[in-house]
């Protein structure tokens, strides 16, 4: 299977690789996937007092599309309010990276990681977690 140039670019030069302080109340962490499935994605966001994401970091164990999906997600998250970030749809990632059907799973994982990170942040700061309307599984 040939990857799109965008997947290769994100894979070769991943954006925002790293780790934020998980214990900080300004940081939300989402860890999704499982080693036995071949994909684990960890996405972290740092949120300021106006609920705007000022930083995002990721680390991913998985194929090229999984790495590219999470790298792209961090780029999109930066500068967004957490409410806007919650609206990121996996199909936007599929479209941007031109993922083939067999790799849609990777984009779903990225969307789930975004939502998990936001909800981690919300719960830490006394807000209710937001239930996802989409059923992926």
């Amino acid at each position, binding site marked *: 299977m040939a990857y799109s140039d965008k997947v290769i670019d994100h*894979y070769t030069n991943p954006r925002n690789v790293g780790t934020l302080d998980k214990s900080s109340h300004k940081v939300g962490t989402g860890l*999704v996937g499982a*080693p036995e*499935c*071949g*994909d684990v994605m960890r996405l972290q966001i740092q949120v300021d007092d106006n609920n705007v994401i000022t930083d995002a970091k990721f*680390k991913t164990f998985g*194929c090229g599309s999984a790495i590219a999906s999470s790298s792209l997600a961090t780029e999109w998250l930066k500068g967004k309010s957490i409410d806007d970030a919650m609206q990121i749809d996996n199909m936007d990632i599929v479209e941007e990276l031109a993922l083939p059907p067999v790799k849609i799973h990777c984009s779903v994982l990225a969307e789930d990681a975004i939502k998990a990170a936001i909800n981690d942040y919300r719960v830490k700061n006394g807000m209710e977690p937001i239930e996802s309307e989409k059923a992926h599984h």
Partner: protein
Amino acid sequence: MELPIYLDNNATTPMDPRVLEAMLPYFNSKFGNAASRNHAFGWVAEEAVDYAREQVAKLIGANEKEIIFTSGATESDNLAIKGVFEMYKDKGNHVITATTEHKAVLDTCKHIEKLGARVTYLDVKADGLIDLAELEAAMTPETILVSIMYGNNEIGVIQPVKEIAAIAHKHGALFMTDATQAVGKIPVDVNADGIDLLAMSAHKMYGPKGIGALYVRRKGPRVKVTAQMDGGGHERGMRSGTLNVPGIVGLGKACELCNAEMESEAARLSAMRDRLQKELTVLEESYVNGNVEHRLPHVANISFKYVEGEGLMMAMKDLAVSSGSACTSASLEPSYVLKSLGLSDDLAHSSIRFGLGRFTTEEEVDYAIEVTKKAVTHLRDLSPLWEMFKEGIDLNSIEWAEH
């Protein structure tokens, strides 16, 4: 050195130019049908087929009358297993094989199960070898066939074929082996090894695709198989269809070359393979899969913990290798062979198979080592699992959100 570098010789091999040269006349000037007995065109083709049959037989210590040409090892496996089951089912309906066999054997066994066969799938030990005591225990008076591969396609492990054959024969069963990866790479002798049926393929030994052979023992015992294809009764009635003369000539030539060069080639390949394994297992948390002693000279299967095989292959884009990860398939299931060794799913997802071959050079192996090391390091820097491992977090203690 030209890029990309081909290190997937278990999947297929490039054709040796000497094989191509031998084949070429049989496409045009010597195009006759080997079954045309009444003119020179037919005789020329028949003569070429006879010669190739001798070349193939010689490589495995057989008689040329015991060689049946097929389209490849998959067809040979099908003809052997279905053919034996249909021929001997009145004697018994039990067949024994192993969980690490190629799909050409496993799926054929599944097929005969539907026709009333009872099949035992033996597990393998952690090093990939079958347990001879378990085989012995599985034998029953109903057992008509034991089918165990010679050398494994994914991990290269060589089974104790001689001992397996002896057990099968002691209980009155036939012994068949899928020797697709072994023939031409290591000495295989149907008489010394006690093999009754053997499947092989030209494209795994620098010959053309679409041609293979089935060895069927003629004496002690005389083995019969029910034909799976009806037609003109070619190949002693076991496999009808006009002979693929250029392919057969190519298979014959490939066998002759392997026979002549096997010893030096095995020494060259295993030295390079050992170096590859040694250099790559210098990396932390990397492991060689399968028995390292009883192994085909050209295969290395290595797990790099905390990186995913397909992602890794992408970082090694100048290397054509194969991954134990099945991330590209809808099932996301990692290799069943690696899982049969008892590897956890995550380790099976983290495996790469390197298959060296006749045209692999020292320089290419050096390059592969360098590229793989760099790629593993790059991906571990990206891996949350590697970070957790480095922090001393037990990954089994984490409640993973499975998808």
